[in-house]
């Protein structure tokens, strides 16, 4: 299930540190991250790959290195997503509310 890589990625403190650094400081290569943080370059790469599997970061070639970026979620999708998902929960909660107005049969 694709939710599991995301959950696994978020539950590791080092990966959260890397994600935080990429979100706060902008895109970076594994070499840059290893220089800034108390993590070996090898470990950085392993963690970045886990974050990429979870689609929390994307990567692109930058010369001979690979640069990692926090995944931007497309704006157009966001507006539609929020409207659609909001409407879905409105209707589900209305169904839940209806259960509380009906006498429960035993």
């Amino acid at each position, binding site marked *: *299930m694709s939710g599991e890589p995301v959950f696994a990625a978020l539950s590791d403190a080092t990966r959260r540190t890397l994600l*935080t650094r990429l979100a706060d*400081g902008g895109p970076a290569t594994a070499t840059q991250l290893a220089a800034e943080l108390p993590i070996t370059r090898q470990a950085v790469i392993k963690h970045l790959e886990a974050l990429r599997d979870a689609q929390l970061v994307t990567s692109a070639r930058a010369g001979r290195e690979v640069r990692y970026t926090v995944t*931007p979620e497309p*704006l157009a999708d966001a507006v539609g997503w*929020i409207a659609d*998902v909001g409407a879905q929960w409105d209707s589900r909660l209305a169904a839940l509310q209806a*259960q509380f107005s009906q006498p429960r049969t035993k």
Partner: protein
Amino acid sequence: MELGKAGQETVVIHSVERELLVPGEPDEAWEAVADPERLGAWLGGDVELDPVPGGDFHITFDDGGERTGFVEEIDAEAHRFAFWWRRPDDELATRVQISLDETEEGTLVRVVETSPMATLDVVGIPLPGFRAQGPTALALAFA
């Protein structure tokens, strides 16, 4: 949903929150909300749920749609139920957190559905430069 800058990239966060006040205490509401037998009645479909952390979750909606996922947390004492789910043709799963809080007027049922990045804020891992702003949006603080 807000726009902002993180380094040189624009990052948008998907987060939706809704609330419903129901009569009675959280223990009563919990049964209606999280019991595997009753969950489908309000989510609107047939639910298959293994109600333990890591347990499988599947729903076939009455209109034919489908979601597959797994349970992250299900705590009858804390009245918290969280799961991840995705459509069959989506790669990205979203997280749904349902929590119950006791109030003077009954039980407040709170649902928050978030995309993976937004989930960091929900589980209390704030990213520097991100902050929660109101019940339905996460915003980036401009430097």
